[in-house]
């Protein structure tokens, strides 16, 4: 009478532990940056420029990951840089998710003219080259954190809308939707109580992916100097500066790159792991 598949325990895998652990660490670093950063990330000191990380010869105490060509502490700058990276990931990711998913859900479940309108909009949107589009947007909006967030939302909502629309269409064809309608449920109620819960695992996976993408986009825009002022530490900005002196001081380039890489990877792995764990695929 009972289905044996339900007895299978789903464990929290190493993937979920590692990615979640790194992101949790990052959140702590971002929140408590003023207490955790060993040095002032903006303080320049030309006497201590291009110090190597602690295990190399010539390293100086306190500069764990070395210093850049202006003598600023790399570790402190990475810690402060995580603030920008995470706030962009969180705010841009959530906003993109909210707008894109809502439009996708409406298009996929209500169909008809709403779908026609939204689908054409998506088609047109996706014909723009995204990098050019974002640079254009920043040029119009001016640089700054808000502009970056707006640019990401404006460009990336289609990513959610497309996938959620397709998923909502599949769910909309299921018998349980008909049952709900027969019982007297309005279309809006049906969408929110019947369709949405089944699309949620997909939305969650996309959200974490989008957070990773947001981090990358912010880094790219910093790299081409369209993000915050160059003074404020961002990972993209650090990578751009490190690139110039990579032959004399590789650490200025490599450490922010590693932080960026781990963060983006963790976001995508977290999404996959959570989907594995919570998706009611055992239908």
């Amino acid at each position: 009478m009972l289905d044996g598949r339900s007895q299978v325990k789903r464990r929290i895998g190493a993937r979920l532990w590692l990615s979640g652990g790194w992101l949790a660490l990052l959140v702590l670093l971002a929140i408590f940056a003023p207490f955790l950063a060993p040095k002032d990330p903006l303080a320049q000191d030309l006497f201590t420029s291009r110090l190597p990380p602690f295990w190399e010869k010539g390293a100086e105490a306190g500069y764990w990951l070395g210093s850049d060509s202006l003598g600023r502490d790399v570790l402190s700058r990475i810690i402060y840089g995580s603030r920008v990276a995470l706030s962009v990931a969180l705010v841009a990711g959530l906003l993109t998710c909210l707008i894109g998913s809502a439009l996708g859900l409406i298009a996929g479940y209500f169909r008809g003219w709403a779908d026609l309108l939204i689908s054409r909009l998506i088609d047109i949107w996706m014909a723009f080259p995204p990098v050019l589009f974002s640079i254009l947007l920043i040029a119009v909006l001016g640089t700054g954190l808000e502009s970056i967030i707006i640019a990401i939302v404006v460009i990336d909502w289609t990513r959610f809308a497309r996938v959620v629309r397709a998923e909502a269409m599949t769910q909309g064809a299921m018998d349980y939707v008909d049952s709900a309608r027969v019982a007297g449920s309005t279309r809006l109620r049906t969408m929110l109580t019947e369709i949405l819960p089944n699309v949620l695992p997909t939305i969650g996976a996309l959200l974490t992916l989008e957070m990773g993408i947001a981090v990358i986009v912010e880094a790219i825009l910093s790299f081409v100097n369209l993000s915050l002022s160059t003074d404020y530490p961002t990972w993209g900005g650090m990578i751009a500066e490190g690139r110039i002196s990579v032959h004399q001081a590789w650490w200025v380039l490599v450490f922010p790159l590693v932080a960026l890489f781990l963060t983006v990877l963790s976001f995508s792995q977290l999404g996959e792991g959570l989907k594995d764990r919570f998706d009611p695929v055992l239908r």
Partner: protein
Amino acid sequence: MTKSYLSIRDLNASIHRGPPLLRGVSLDVAQGEVRCLVGESGAGKSMIGKAVLGILPRAVVVTGGEIWLDGENLLAMPPAKRRKTIGAKAAMIPQDPLTALNPSHRVGPQITDRLVDILGWTRADADARAVELLGEVHIPEAERVLKMYPHELSGGMRQRILIASAFAAEPKLIIADEPTTALDVTVQKQILRLIAEMQRRHGTALLFVTHDLGVVSKVGNHLTVLFAGKVVEDASMREFFASPVHPYSRSLLAATPKYTDPTGSLNPVPQAVIDETMAEVAAYDREHGHG
């Protein structure tokens, strides 16, 4: 005959800007009566049920006719009122129990939420009702099962729950759309018996859609045979099995394999009969100005 609870009059439906699907269908289901609706795949059996319940696919439009439910014409109502009327007076037992329960919700709320949110029951009443209903459909340990997710239950169990759910608000009409097709043969029989038992206990009018004449003989009082969206025979069960009137119904009956003669050859419906019936349909179309 007692008063009809559901009365369909001259119902026409077609694919949007396409060919007709239902051609002047009329049928009645009286209170407490079981009417079987049989026909081949694509004859429009399910469409009739969906038209009554207001869940026709987007591409299908009703082009004429009336659907009377408890003395009110559903097709003449504004959509919101129709929704309410159907919700209060009718329910369905779906074809596929595997997709008819929402995988994201526990079983209990899927029965009770509608009673609470739409029909205004109290939570306690609804919960008690769910337990009572699960008992009626012979599910033991109701409290435990109500807390489970659909994927934890077998197909037969899920169909029992859907039957319970259909009877939850004491609807006067239930439309069962091939409720046994997706199940194992062994489970089919139990479910069939259960539906008949529930129908008798609650005195519900039941429209039973099926393509299986073997099933029909077990559950129905009356029978409607549909061919290409047109009613070709409307008879009481006894009349039908004794002496079907329409040549198509006669061949259909002859085509049903018999347990008593397992080695006997199968008798498909002869092409001549199909052609003849098609000609009738074409004549109807000409008369009513379709393509």
